[in-house]
Structures are given as structure tokens and as C-alpha cells.
């Protein structure tokens, strides 16, 4: 075996009883493909995932949706496994498979009996470099993607509102484009677009393999060497540098009206820090801030707006710490009957100002930390979730070490850290405020 185990890492926490379940064994193939093994011997099942470090935010302007469209096309066959033979083989072996696309990654996974790992690796490796497409196949699948857009975005007012908000928010960064793509651009995506994108980005030096379940790590590495090591690298992989948003000098506001909206919604977002390799403290503070502001029933915004003032049916905060580039910190509230959006926004601002002035208590923070720590134990119970945690992080430019450090970084956050990050985040000039209203609602 040519592999060296470059790391054998056990989380210091939780307690020793769970250590065996909490270990990641990592390696890298000579062609640059990362390999991560997460053992879980509780059931004879394996989850096999390949994550490509490419997503909607890597598309060139004018081709929005191509990353997601290609995800669909990856099920269309190769010379050696033509047509839908891939899925027939998975099904014949009692396996399940699917795929998903985000702004930062595209991932493919199978869940199957642990003794079928060789088969799924062979199939996944084959379609990494050998996909066969035709203009006819591309044209037909484009119809399916347009139907998917109808179902996912247009079928709910919240879906349209979120898409419009992102477009207004990210004036320069491609996070402003919908993952599924703008309709007019999906309609124009071609066979050549798909193939160009595929050849450039689908390669071992742009991929992470994660195998989780009832497996022997040494055997996984042997199989990976057999199936993935022979694959050719992509030689024209561009550096992953996206256009960044400028510092905004003017607050932005948008109003979306839709006949399907029955209760007005107010949202507000601000630029936020994200986890960076070896530098996760500020994102951890923002994560805790979101928990304290809106993460639970006892958080500040629900307590003030839902319970004390009764101006909101629900209120909260939303923040995702893991992304390749900085994203947004959001707060939101749904108006109680008779409460106008402008009044709700004013109450939201007052609640936020009070929080910044008086701040959370040590007891509040301790409670959040206990819950976050417990979530780490609960997370051990799900094979897919464990694998996804690593996949998302690595596709966002983080390392296995960062993933392992993250729980401790969260536990180290202090009230002073939270106050400091809040002071940085809540800059009104950088804010985007959205109203989603019914046709007759007053602003």
C-alpha cells in the first residue's frame, strides 16, 4: 500500500466511550484526490460520497445553473456503463443513490450494503472522467430541470423572495445567482456548456472521497487506489477566486408582493465572517450570536417579539458558518395579525439594539454551549450527517483539522467575543432589508 495515513485524529470530546465512533482517517491519492474514512460498525452499511469542489458560484456569468444541470447529466451514462445502467446496478444491489448541488460543491452519494463498496467506487470513478452526452440527452434533461425550477422556486412565495433577496444582496459575488439558475439562462444551456464544465472540474484533484460506515480503512484505501488513483488530473482547474462583494455604502431594501402571502415577513441580513482554515474563532462567535438571538425558544428575538410584545408569530436568526466565501447573517420575523411590516421592523431594530446594549448573560451562553456540545453527541448517530459535515467543510476550503477543532472553538467563545462580532456585523449601511407582503398589505 502506497498510502500513508497522514492523520489519525480523535476528537478530544465527547467522552472516551464515543471516541471510536468519532475518528476520521484521511489520506490523499497521488493524483490529488482526498480520501476520508469514518468508521461506524453498528450496521453493515456504507455511505460512499464524492464531493467536487465546484458549485453554482464557480459558473461563468451567463451560464447560471450549469453546475446543477451537470449533476443531472451525470446519471446519463458512460461508454462502459451506458444509459441508466449505473442506476440499474445500484438498484440490483439494493443500494440507494442521489446527488445535490450548492453554491460551493456538487456531491454524489450511495448508501449500500458494506460489501458492495467496490462496485460503487468503480461506478463513481468511471463517471468522473468518462461521461458520454449527446445534444438530445441534454435537451431532454433541460426540460426536467425547468420543471424542477417551477417546483422548487416558483411554487412558493418564500422561494421567489429568497432568490430576489440574494440577487439584491450580492452585487458582485456569484452567491447572488440561484443555484438552479435563472430560467432564461437554463433555457440556453447547451451540450457544449455541460461538457466544458465537466471536463474542467470533474477530476480527482478537485474531488474529496468520503466513505462512512462498516468498513476497514485500509481496505477503503486499497479500493480507492484501484479505482480512483488511475484517473487523470484536470490540468486547467482555475484557482477558486470569485469576485467579492464590495463594502456597501448604501442600505438596500426590497419589497416583494405575492398573492399567496398571508402574513407579512420582514428579513434583514448583514455581511458575516465565515470559517477559514486555522481561523474559525470569529465565525464561531457569530454562530453563538445566532443561537442567542434566534436559535431556540428562549433566544432573545423570540422572547421579545413573540412572547413579550406579541408582534410576531415567529422570529429568529439564521447563520451558516461554513462556506467558501463570506455569506450573510440574517434575522427575520413573521408579523402577528394586524401588525404592519414597518412596525415589525422597528420592533426588530429595538430588540436588536437592546440585545447589543445589555447583551446575553453567562447563563444564557452556558445553556447554548451545553446544547451545542450535546449536538455533537447526537450527530454521531447519523452516518450521512457525519459524512456531510466533512464534505461541506472540505469543499469550502477547510481541512479535516478544522472540522475536528470546530467543537472546541465553539466552546471557547466568550461573551466579549460575541459582543465584538455583533458590533462588527450589525452595520446598517451593509444591511439588506426585505419585506414579503400580500397584495393589499401596507408597508
Amino acid at each position: 500500500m502506497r498510502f500513508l495515513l497522514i492523520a489519525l485524529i480523535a476528537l478530544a470530546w465527547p467522552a472516551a466511550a464515543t471516541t471510536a465512533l468519532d475518528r476520521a482517517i484521511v489520506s490523499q491519492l497521488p493524483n490529488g484526490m482526498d480520501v476520508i474514512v469514518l468508521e461506524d460498525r453498528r450496521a453493515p452499511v456504507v455511505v460512499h460520497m464524492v464531493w467536487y469542489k465546484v458549485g453554482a458560484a464557480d459558473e461563468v456569468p451567463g451560464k447560471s445553473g450549469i453546475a446543477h444541470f451537470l449533476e443531472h447529466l451525470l446519471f446519463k451514462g458512460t461508454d462502459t456503463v451506458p444509459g441508466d445502467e449505473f442506476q440499474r446496478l445500484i438498484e440490483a444491489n439494493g443500494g440507494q443513490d442521489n446527488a445535490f448541488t450548492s453554491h460551493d460543491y456538487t456531491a454524489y452519494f450511495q448508501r449500500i450494503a458494506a460489501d458492495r463498496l467496490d462496485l460503487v467506487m468503480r461506478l463513481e470513478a468511471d463517471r468522473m472522467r468518462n461521461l458520454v452526452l449527446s445534444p438530445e440527452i441534454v435537451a431532454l434533461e433541460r426540460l426536467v430541470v425547468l420543471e424542477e425550477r417551477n417546483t422548487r422556486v416558483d411554487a412558493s412565495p418564500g422561494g421567489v423572495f429568497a432568490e430576489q433577496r440574494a440577487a439584491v444582496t450580492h452585487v458582485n459575488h456569484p452567491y447572488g445567482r440561484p443555484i438552479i439558475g435563472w430560467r432564461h439562462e437554463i433555457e440556453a444551456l447547451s451540450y457544449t456548456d455541460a461538457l466544458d464544465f465537466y471536463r474542467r472540474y470533474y477530476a480527482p484533484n478537485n474531488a474529496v472521497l468520503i466513505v462512512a460506515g462498516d468498513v476497514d480503512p485500509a481496505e477503503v484505501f486499497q479500493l480507492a487506489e484501484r479505482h480512483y488513483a488511475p484517473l487523470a488530473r484536470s490540468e486547467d482547474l482555475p484557482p477558486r477566486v470569485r469576485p467579492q462583494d464590495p463594502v456597501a455604502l448604501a442600505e438596500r431594501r426590497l419589497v416583494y408582493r405575492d398573492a399567496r402571502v398571508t402574513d407579512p415577513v420582514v428579513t434583514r441580513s448583514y455581511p458575516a465572517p465565515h470559517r477559514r482554515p486555522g481561523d474559525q474563532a470569529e465565525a464561531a462567535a457569530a454562530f453563538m450570536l445566532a443561537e442567542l438571538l434566534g436559535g431556540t425558544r428562549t433566544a432573545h428575538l423570540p422572547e421579545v417579539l413573540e412572547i413579550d410584545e406579541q408582534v410576531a408569530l415567529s422570529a429568529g436568526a439564521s447563520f451558516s458558518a461554513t462556506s467558501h466565501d463570506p455569506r450573510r447573517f440574517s434575522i427575520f420575523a413573521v408579523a402577528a395579525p394586524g401588525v404592519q411590516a414597518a412596525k415589525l421592523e422597528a420592533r426588530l431594530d429595538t430588540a436588536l439594539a437592546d440585545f447589543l446594549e445589555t447583551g446575553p448573560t453567562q447563563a444564557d451562553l452556558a445553556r447554548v454551549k451545553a446544547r451545542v456540545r450535546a449536538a455533537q453527541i447526537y450527530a454521531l448517530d447519523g452516518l450521512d450527517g457525519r459524512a456531510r459535515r466533512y464534505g461541506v467543510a472540505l469543499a469550502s476550503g477547510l481541512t479535516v483539522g478544522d472540522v475536528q477543532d470546530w467543537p472546541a472553538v465553539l466552546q471557547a467563545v466568550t461573551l466579549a467575543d460575541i459582543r465584538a462580532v455583533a458590533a462588527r456585523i450589525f452595520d446598517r449601511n451593509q444591511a439588506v432589508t426585505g419585506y414579503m407582503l400580500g397584495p393589499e398589505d401596507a408597508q
Partner: protein
Amino acid sequence: MIRLVLILAIALAAPLRAATDIVEVTSPGGLTAWLVEEPSIPIVTLNLHFEGGPAIDPPERAGATVLMTGLLDEGAGDRDAQGFAVAREELALRLGFSTNRSAVTVGMTMLSENRAESLALLRSALTEPRFDPEPLERVRGQILSGLRRDQTNPRAILGRAVNRAVYGDHPFARDRDGTPDTVSGLTREDLLAAHARAFTRDRLTIAVVGDITAAELGAPLDDLLGWLPEATVPPPADADLSDAAQTVIIPFASPQSTARFLHTGIDRDDPDYIAAIVVNHILGGGGSLSRLTQEVREERGLTYGISTALQSSSYGSLYGGALSSANATMGQALDLVRAEWARMADEGISQTELDAAKMYLTGAFPLQFNGNGRIARYLIGLQLSRRPIDYIDRRNGLIEALTLEEVNRVAARLLKPEALRVFVIGQPEGVTPTE
């Protein structure tokens, strides 16, 4: 995602290493629970299922059970709503109370180190809920908001129309949340009455998975549930389901239409049920290789997702499916559905299809238990459908033993193309309503 996860699918397939892993525990007080010990992670999952639920609300008090259930974690004993929430967070307890159309369910996952305190908090929520005015009005407001939203949500409108047409005067025809009128009129006394109806020993099913032994389980179960009265009101009646072909269009301004199609189905305890699982898998239950997905999506690109499911319950069984398609193509898509329904009823399936379905269904069986929560839900399902405790050992054998003749006989029995009820919401072209 390449495929929409099949939300209709009612999975009765799932996987343990061996049936011996399930033990039946009887508490000193006579409560029985099914237990899977899983000591490798220091957590315990407890699921409780109380049959009845919204289906036993009096019609004029529709929604009482949902509101009552929504208030169980909003104050109990000497803790007000905020006090209860703080206690739950301090224990890092995952506790959810919910309803489906004929049950109140409790799902709880606790850290082993907090087991006693967590069970005590649950006991307090179940035995001494406060139903204080502030949370009552707040949760009522949230339910009314949901009802308003449903009035402009095409899928919710469609679901109601289907339920009204299929279930007639059975409680399943109603919305389990109630109506704006009934919810607005509910009083604290109504909630106490709903509480008394919901929680009885005769309709209780218990599943436990995790870091606890059979010996350790009995006494805590009695502490938690020993107070339950034997029985109060009778369980819901069976639904009187019958077939009546119809096509209904609900006009709704949207670029895409959504359709549901169904007729009467097959009960879980019917000897043909196992064969029906195979029929459904091949017709529309089996993802991208099913006949319907091949015809409607893969060959023609008319939809992102089409699926079917056996909707079998002890109150009456249905069989049907759903799809969305652009308004212009909905008529064509539904024509294909009818044609495939008829083709499988008339000609059955091939040996190749049967072999592939068996390989998938038996192979996928052990995959679905991914975590304590899913195992616990499966144990509840097994008990509710009165499967033997060794069903998991036997189930793949039942699938393997099916012959082509048997499956085709059941296909002809299950599939009634002439009896399909079709409901479409949107502005579909090429669909002719029956009235």
C-alpha cells in the same frame, strides 16, 4: 438534487442486524415496550404513539388535539413556558410533541447522563400541562397563521380536496388543525378534554432505542406512564372507502399544475400486501427506474418528480400518486399515467422486472435504519401493524418467495385504471373534468 425525495412513500421496509436485537420489555406495572439496545453512543431515544389523535376530536372542536399537543412543552407543573424551555435546553433534551391525522406522538432523545431528569420533565409535560393564557393565545395564533397560509398553498388546497372527496363524513375528511372558526373558539376546557381523550393506556405504543438495558427500562416506564387511565372514548371508526372515477380541476394561477391520482388500495394485513409492495415499486414507487418515471420524466421531460405509494392504514387503504408538470403538459402526463396503470393491470410485469425489484427491495431493507430515531419509528410501525417481533427476519423471505403469477394477479387486483380519481390544481391543458 437529481430526484425529489419521495415524500409519499410509506416505508415499511427497514433494517436491523437481527430480529433478536428487538426485545419486548414488560414493566412491573404491565406496560410493554419494544427495545433495541445500542450502547455505543451515550444517548437514548424514546418514542410514544397514542392512537386516536385529531380523529377523535368532536367536529365542533376540530383542532383541539393539535392545539393541546402544541402546548405540552409550553409550561407544566411549576414551570411556565419560559421555565420549561430553559429546563429542556439545560438538559440538552430533544423533545417533540406532534400529531398526525390519527395519533399524538412523542419523540424524545436524551443524553444518558441526563436520563432521569429528562424523563421527569417529560412526565411533567404529559401529566400536568398548564395551558396558560399567554402560550395558548400565541400557539393558537401560529395555528391560525398556518391555516391562512394553507388557503393560498396549492398543495394544501389539493390535499384538502382529495380528503373531502375520498373520506366523506369520516374524520379524515377534515383538516386536523381544525378551521379558523373552531380554532378561534377553543377554550382551556376543550384542551383539558382533548388531553383526557388523547392519553390512555389502551392506545399506547412504546419504542426505545439506545443506551439502556431491558432491566433498566421497566421502572422508568411505570414512573412515566403508570398514571394513564385504561381507556376513555372509543377509537376512530373505519373509513368507508369506495371507488368513484372522477376528474376535478381546481383553478389556480401558477405556471405549473400539481395532480394527485388514487383509488382504493390494499390493507397491510392482506395476504397480497407483500406482492403489492413489488407492484408499486415497479410502477411508481422505485425512483428513477419505475415505469412512470421512465415514461413521464426520462423519456419526455414532463416532470421533475412522479411517484406512487401504498397508503395503507387500519382505517382504510388507498393507492395512488402525485406529480407536477407545466400547465401545457399536464394533460399529456396524466394520459401517460392512465396508460401505464392500464398496461400493468392488463399485461403485468416481466420476470426481469420482478427479479430486479426483489434484488432492490431485499438489498435496501437493511439500509434504512440510519440512527436511533429511525429505528424507534420503525419499531412503532411494526407494533401498530401488528407484525411479529421477528418480522425483520422473515420479511425478505416473503419477498423472495413471490412468483410472477402471484405478482401479476395482485397487479390486476390492485390497479383499477377505470376507477382513478384525478385531482389537479393549476391551469392544466388537456384535462377534462368529469363535472
